[in-house]
């Protein structure tokens, strides 16, 4: 049984449709389903929607639309789940788990009671689901992490996390597209750019995609790093139907 969503106003310019307060696949599937339905419905006055773990935030023009009208439209959409043609894609993202690319690997190994090689194996052995993109342009929230690797964030967040850092914390994994502050454990680095403002769409990944991490050595990392956004994108994207 699913619970009724809550309709929460964010001021006069947005409405958050909240399905739950927790992070799980069933909730996220409802978010992604409503997002697809909303975009298909092309409601006058809706500017854009932002899918997150557990809710969909709908930004609208308050001159032409209001919360009550939008809530009524969304209620109708929820009653008739949108039968989206699956756009989910599968990616193979190369990761180098070596040396200075993995400054927290030994810490993570110690805290999880595994040896570093086992941490890498656990991290790279399973598919990840893209719950949402946020915090930074192109930054994916990937789940779910194997139970053994479920650690809290670092006590001392870094002021600078290098771009391409592959990190874990709080049951999730991510990749930092830009240099930024960050409190997650850095266990590898990818040469793949996750975001290019010159591309449409600008983000490599989208909510609903599947990601596999593929361990590579430093030589392969260097080779891939020299490729353009487009070349890397086509290398990483699995052809349809092979997933």
């Amino acid at each position, binding site marked *: 049984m699913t619970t009724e969503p809550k309709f*929460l*106003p*964010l*001021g*006069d*310019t*947005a409405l*958050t449709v*909240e399905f739950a*307060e*927790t*992070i799980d696949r069933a909730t996220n599937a409802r978010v992604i389903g409503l*997002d697809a339905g909303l975009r298909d419905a092309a409601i006058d006055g809706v*500017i*854009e*929607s*932002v*899918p*997150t*773990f*557990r*809710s*969909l*935030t709908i*930004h609208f023009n*308050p*001159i032409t639309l*209001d*919360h*009550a009208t939008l809530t009524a439209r969304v209620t109708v959409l929820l009653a008739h789940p949108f039968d989206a043609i699956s756009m989910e894609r599968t990616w193979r993202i190369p990761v180098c788990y070596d040396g200075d690319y993995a400054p927290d690997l030994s810490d993570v190994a110690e805290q999880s009671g595994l040896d570093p090689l086992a941490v890498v194996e656990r991290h790279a052995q399973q598919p990840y689901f893209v719950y*949402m*993109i*946020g*915090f*930074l*342009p*192109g*930054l994916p*929230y990937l789940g779910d992490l194997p139970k053994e690797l479920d650690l809290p964030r670092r006590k001392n967040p870094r002021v600078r996390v290098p771009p391409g850092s592959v990190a874990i914390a709080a049951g999730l994994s991510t990749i930092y597209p*830009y240099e930024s502050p960050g409190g997650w454990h850095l266990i590898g680095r990818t040469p793949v750019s996750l*975001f290019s*403002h*010159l591309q*449409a*769409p*600008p*983000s490599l990944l*989208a*909510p609903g995609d599947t990601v596999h991490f593929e361990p590579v050595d430093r030589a392969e990392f260097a080779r891939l790093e020299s490729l353009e956004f487009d070349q890397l994108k086509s290398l990483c994207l699995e052809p349809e139907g092979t997933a």
Partner: protein
Amino acid sequence: MMASLIVHQPGLYTTVQDAGRYGHQRFGVPLAGALDLESFWLANALVGNPWNDAALEVRMLGPVLEVCADAVRLALTGTKCPLKIARAGREERVPAYQGITVERGAMVTVPPLTDSANAYLAVSGGLAVPPILGSASTLTRAGFGGIDGRALASGDVLHLHDDCEPDGPDLQLRDDVLALNGRIRVVLGPQLDYFSSASIDTFLQTDWEISNDADRMGIRLVGPQLEHTRGFNIASDGIATGSIQVPGSGQPIILLADRQTTGGYPKIATVISTDLPLLGRARPGERLRFESVSADRAIELRRERWARLRHNVARATPVLAERAINMDALQGENLVSGVWSSGDD
């Protein structure tokens, strides 16, 4: 020769902005855009531009620009400080909220802002900046938009469009700057249940001080510590411009144009869009108090304000009107048609 403005002094933090970069928040791309959208619109209206043309957002200390075009119209808004124009050996002061047509060689100085944190300088035809993801707005954190994704620097050349030559007389608007009267209206929530009722009362009854930690991303407030009842972490969800998040410190942060698209701190309230321009003008050290309104009331206020802005723009008068014997005939709709060419969009 291509029409342009040459940057002699960049000012403290002058950026190219338009109304913002919409449609990419789902990919984590912040909106950016003018902090005080109302003043930005009025500046464009005064120079005869569509409302979303790229203009300069001037923060605290303004730039010095040289005009390299046969004739362009400029207008400064968001402040009451006058624009300084040096030309033909003379220096004149042009009031804000008034268009001024200047010729090649004129030196334009936006003075230090004494009454506002941000002002807007628009140019007839708009700044010719290539759009990135559909917008000219500068997002310095990500390094794109505007001039190479950064604030202006000395020696920059701001290209203008070929059609920058102004039509008709310079116009003036009744100066419509609302001083920060200390009252900022909010819609409570969406995570109101993360705060005790005592903390919500405190939130609404405190004169919050704007700290020095205020930029295009947000404004940190200083006051009594707000207490969370269920911790200060939520599963990240969507944010609106004006959302007020309360991290573990218990000190609220109002999120503005360059805000992130999603966040993991509980949000106690959201500033209504009608009052966001006030926050664009607000300076560190000023105090503000929040007043709760319903979401429906917030929408009514937005619509009333929009109608009033359009009304004010339609009543723009020629700068010479006050000296003329009878300029009433010129003040009708015909004179100002085209000033607000796409206001309904």
